[in-house]
């Protein structure tokens, strides 16, 4: 097996050999490698296939901008992950990766045929075809498109890993651990600011840390050596936190940033030190210093996508950082000086290297040095074509015309297996724009630069357009100084000697002899959009960059256009004759690099998906085999099946017991609000539809609360505990909303009222006992209390004690039975409940759940807000006119009851429904009609509640029916899929209309 590794490497530990698998074949790399560098060291360039044409693609970069080398990690396991960049994943023992989007394999891919039909499938072709015959779209065309689209495979097993979140607040956040970030962090931390430095790599230093070149010196040291020492000092600083393997994903307003820290993705299964895979840091920083660097631009020419065509700076990093050689016959193809560093590095390692420069000539320090060493340079030249299917093997070079618009002279064909391309640099302004910042355009080297308005954040280093070492250090120092209002720093006198670029020449789309239509000059490598696609879009009238982007899908691949956006813009501006500056860029949307769902969600999965609220009696319910219903965040007993009872049987038994003898219900979840103050009763007058002033102390009253739009909002019983003291109960689901709504009115509309509201929902456990024998049970529990009907009347309460513990006994009923509710401090709730069960034994006291409660109240025609109402029902619609005070001047929602629509006589109104066949149970939600044959069918209303009543031994239902008030006795239909059920409109009270049972 060939070895492309050089002898000595600083950042790869050649004593630590690691084995990994790629496409099922075992290879070896070293600790410190990325998957990409390890593959390259094994001479493997072809790692994937492109999205549309399935062209062979190789590793092109060494970072997050990688468009081609994306793999499926750990295929077929529960740790699999699609679309992982080989350039970002660190090598670990046992790592398995496979190439994507190819079948049967990456070397021979059937999909490659697309490359040959490519003339027929230009950008947006799918908008123009697949329309005939119509039926084919659903059954043939689309399934085909779907199958061929998509890259990796979604996991199909639950994720065994955990993810965590942490909030952190700091003075200064520095994004990026390159030379400018390090300088900024050092200044900030030393100035006493609580500082965080974040970098996505596993080591600090950016690209300077491997800049091993005589032409770049800081204080007379080679730049990399100088920086190395700086980093060592940095690590000693106290109020500085350094986070490596951490990438900022999003920069939201108010300096709220999200950063994902990788904890185990670089470790083999058995070396994982943490059971957390990734932690999402939620950062609030007073100020942010962005030092995110710049990305090298590729060049756009015919067949510029072959494996072996790599960014020049990446070739340099693979060599100097990982110690990997990308090819034997290397060419550097550039329009700027920076690529000459790559040439020098290769030359010094004795590797064959030639240079193609589109510039006519330049005499900068570094270029002179290269010439002095005798490295061939093809000036004023361009690559016009490349060859080699699975791996680059040769290139074709031609001279450029004077204005660069064409190629001239004869073709030179040269052997080449690694073409190191450099089209200049693009500052990473993503963070700046995400934060809401705008951009300026710099004509000289055609880059967009941060336009800084507020003092919330600054950009330093190459992301701010400083590409020369001396500028970087000088400007970083100055900007950070003014951000922190410092007089001077240790970097004032830092002396830099470096080569300076003298000449620039940029051609977005390099010319060719062949007509553009016949070339494949790629702009977006992953999505296979080419220069001619951009021109087609423009030809078809797509002008705005966003249109072109969407039509050609340029910049919409998993690299989000990090390599392609600028070239697309450049070609648009050239073709349309609009200045790039005025064209503007597309918006950079978060996240900067794809972020796992798991990291975003953190630990709120499984049992922690949502809060579970439990009553103090919960344990008992579980012990007694309760089935639970989710009511908001509460767990409420739904029913208590015995042996092998199903729900229906259990509910029938429970509700019968409640009516025949005694039932017991945990009513602790109802909202409770303690209301005090001299205006308490006036307050109730304003929030409820009925009158409260005259309610005597010790008495309870049912109240209905509306929205301002007149629709029923909540209901409950309120008790007058004292002259200025009430206890309000609300529905379980409504509790929180009611309290904040009431506070809202108190604080904003009626500040003059002397009223205090305090939630006591969790203070009390509420045990409700109903049934003809309930009184007997209560007497056993409270021998001292007089339960005599004329003394302890319905809708009144008494304070008492049980074993010297205070409690409140309310005689109120939601079932129509004689019924008592006991409120006791929650810590005694379970104990009290058990006592009640004990006391009720002889009376077959039966615990019942929400289902039975719903049935019992339905027999009495009591409504449940949210089930029998839906936000469109007024009290009048519910036939509860009696509860709407005519005397009161005003209450919440009153005015709305008198609007032209709400006073209509024929609105939907609450009625009872009886089925012709008493055994037939209606489906809740079923619609109600009078005539099914007349189309369109007119729906009169729907069934809101429906049960089989064991006590009436027939099916009963509540429904809302248009003009129902006037329909009593009328026959209607409930049409189901397979049959129509005959029903008769009835009174909504089915049982004990005279309320005899309340005093049974």
């Amino acid at each position, binding site marked *: 097996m060939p070895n492309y590794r050089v002898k000595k490497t600083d950042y790869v530990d050649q004593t630590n050999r690691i084995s990994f698998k790629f496409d099922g074949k075992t290879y070896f790399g070293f600790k410190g490698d990325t998957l990409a560098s390890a593959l390259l060291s094994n001479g493997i360039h072809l790692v994937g296939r492109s999205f549309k044409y399935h062209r062979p693609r190789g590793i092109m970069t060494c970072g997050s901008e990688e468009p081609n080398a994306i793999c499926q990690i750990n295929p077929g396991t529960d740790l699999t992950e699609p679309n992982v960049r080989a350039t970002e994943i660190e090598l670990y023992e046992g790592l398995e990766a496979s190439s994507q989007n190819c079948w049967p394999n990456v070397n021979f891919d059937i999909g490659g045929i697309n490359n040959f039909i490519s003339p027929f499938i230009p950008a947006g072709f799918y908008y123009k075809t697949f329309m005939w015959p119509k039926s084919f779209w659903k059954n043939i065309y689309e399934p085909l498109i779907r199958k061929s689209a998509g890259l990796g495979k979604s996991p199909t097993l639950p994720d065994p890993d*955990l993810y*965590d*979140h*942490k*909030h*952190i*607040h700091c003075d200064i956040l520095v994004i990026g651990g390159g030379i400018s970030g390090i300088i900024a962090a050092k200044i900030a931390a030393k100035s006493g600011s*609580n500082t965080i430095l974040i970098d996505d790599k596993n080591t600090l230093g950016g690209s300077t840390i491997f800049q091993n070149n005589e032409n770049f010196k800081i204080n007379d040291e080679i730049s990399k050596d100088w920086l190395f020492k700086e980093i060592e000092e940095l690590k000693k600083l106290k109020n500085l936190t350094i986070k490596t393997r951490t990438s900022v994903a999003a920069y939201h307003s108010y300096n709220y940033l999200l950063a994902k820290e990788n904890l185990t993705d670089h470790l083999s299964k058995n070396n994982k030190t*943490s*059971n*957390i895979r990734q932690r999402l840091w*939620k950062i*609030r920083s007073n100020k942010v210093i962005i030092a995110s660097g710049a990305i090298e631009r590729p060049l756009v020419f015919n067949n510029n996508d072959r494996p072996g065509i790599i960014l020049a700076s990446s070739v340099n990093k693979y060599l100097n950082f990982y110690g990997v050689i990308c090819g034997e016959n290397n060419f550097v193809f550039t329009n700027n000086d920076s690529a000459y560093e790559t040439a020098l590095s290769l030359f010094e390692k004795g590797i064959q290297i030639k240079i193609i420069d589109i510039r006519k000539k330049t005499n900068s320090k570094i270029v002179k040095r290269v010439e002095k060493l005798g490295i061939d340079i093809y000036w004023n030249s361009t690559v016009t074509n490349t060859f080699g299917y699975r791996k680059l093997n040769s290139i074709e070079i031609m001279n450029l015309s004077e204005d660069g618009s064409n190629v001239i002279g004869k073709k030179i064909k040269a052997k080449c297996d690694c073409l190191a391309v450099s089209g200049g640099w693009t500052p990473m302004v993503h963070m700046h724009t995400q934060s809401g910042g705008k951009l300026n355009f710099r004509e000289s080297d055609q880059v967009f630069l941060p336009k800084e308005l507020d003092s919330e954040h600054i950009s330093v280093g190459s992301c701010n357009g400083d590409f020369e070492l001396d500028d970087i250090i000088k400007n970083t120092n100055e900007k950070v100084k003014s951000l922190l209002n410092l007089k001077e720093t240790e970097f004032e006198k830092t002396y830099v000697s470096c080569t300076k670029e003298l000449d620039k020449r940029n051609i977005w789309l390099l010319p060719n002899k062949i007509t553009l239509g016949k070339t494949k000059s790629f702009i977006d490598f992953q999505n296979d959009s080419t220069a001619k696609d951009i021109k087609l879009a423009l030809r078809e009238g797509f002008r705005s960059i966003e249109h072109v982007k969407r039509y050609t899908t340029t910049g919409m691949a998993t690299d989000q256009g990090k390599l392609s956006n600028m070239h697309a813009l450049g070609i648009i501006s050239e073709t349309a004759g609009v200045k790039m500056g005025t064209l503007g860029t597309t918006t950079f949307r978060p996240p900067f690099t794809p972020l796992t769902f798991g990291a975003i969600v*953190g*630990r*709120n999965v499984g*049992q*922690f998906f949502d*809060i*579970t*609220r*439990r*009553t*103090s009696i919960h*344990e008992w319910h579980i012990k007694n085999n309760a089935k639970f219903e989710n009511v908001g965040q*509460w767990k409420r007993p739904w029913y208590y099946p015995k042996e092998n009872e199903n729900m229906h049987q259990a509910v029938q038994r429970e509700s019968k017991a409640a009516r025949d003898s005694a039932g017991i219900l945990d009513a602790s*979840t109802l909202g409770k609000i*303690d209301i*005090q*103050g*001299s205006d308490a009763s006036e307050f109730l007058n304003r929030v409820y539809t009925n009158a409260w002033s005259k309610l005597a102390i010790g008495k309870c009253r049912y109240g209905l609360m509306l929205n301002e739009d007149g629709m029923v909002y909540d209901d409950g019983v309120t008790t007058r505990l*004292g002259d*200025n*003291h009430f206890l309000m109960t609300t529905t379980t689901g409504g509790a929180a909303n009611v309290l904040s709504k009431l506070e809202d009115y108190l604080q904003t509309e009626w500040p003059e009222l*002397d009223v*205090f509201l*305090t*939630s*006591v*929902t*969790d*203070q*009390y456990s509420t045990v409700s006992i109903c049934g003809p024998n309930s009184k007997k049970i209560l007497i056993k529990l409270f021998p001292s209390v007089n339960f005599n009907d004329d003394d302890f009347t319905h809708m009144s309460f008494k304070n008492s004690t*049980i*074993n010297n*513990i*205070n409690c409140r006994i309310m005689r109120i009923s939601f079932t129509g039975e004689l019924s008592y509710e006991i409120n006791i*401090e*929650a*810590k*005694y*709730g*379970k*104990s*009290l409940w058990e*006592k009640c069960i004990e006391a009720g034994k002889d009376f077959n006291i039966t615990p019942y759940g929400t289902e039975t409660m719903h049935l019992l109240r339905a027999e009495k025609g009591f409504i449940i807000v949210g089930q029998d109402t839906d936000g469109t029902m007024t009290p009048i619609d519910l036939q509860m006119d009696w509860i709407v005070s005519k005397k009161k001047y005003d209450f919440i929602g009153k005015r709305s009851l008198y609007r032209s629509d709400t006073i209509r006589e024929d609105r939907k109104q609450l009625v009872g429904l009886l089925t012709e066949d008493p055994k037939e149970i209606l489906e809740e939600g079923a619609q109600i009609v009078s005539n099914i044959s007349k189309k369109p069918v007119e729906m009169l209303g729907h069934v809101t509640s429906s049960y089989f009543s064991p006590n009436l031994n027939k099916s009963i239902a509540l429904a809302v029916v248009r003009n129902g008030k006037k329909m009593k006795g009328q026959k209607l239909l409930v049409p189901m899929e397979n049959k129509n059920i005959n029903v008769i409109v009835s009174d909504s009270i089915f049982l004990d209309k005279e309320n005899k049972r309340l005093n049974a």
Partner: protein
Amino acid sequence: MLNINFPKIDKKTFNDLELSLAEEKIKINIRGKNKDFFTKVGKITSIILPTEANTSSSNEKFNALWLSPDEWIIYFDGKDTNKVINNLFNEISKLNFGAITDISDHWVCINIKGRKTFDLLSSSSPFNFNSFKKSKNNVAQTVLNHTDVIIHHKEVDDVNLFVRRSFAEDLWLWINDSARFL
């Protein structure tokens, strides 16, 4: 006799962290605005209600936490609620100087101790503890894992965390789960 049941919260110790239920405590919600209100509270509890936001005041028996300009919680160890509450109630609620409400069972008090205390809280609270943790007697009403909590920084790296009873078990499970990752 009735036995007492608190949410299932048993003492747990992790390195640099100690979690426990801090009951039984009496907790009284106190609302009021005018001068007489303050003097009456002072007379009965011999404590000056803190008027500075997010702070607390304490004496040998009572802790008073600021909740809002007209709302405080007074909490103290003990079982017999009646005496203090009744005094306050009769002197303040009854005479319309404010509102006194027994909320001893509405809130459950969890004690968190140790060097990692604020790391734990930061796992799921957006609150900025940087200055909060520096000095004791600070009070914060905020959210922890989407649950309303009141945090009383009574001693250095030692807080009483108040959570509504029905949420307590759920939050406790979450806290224990979080503690593993510190």
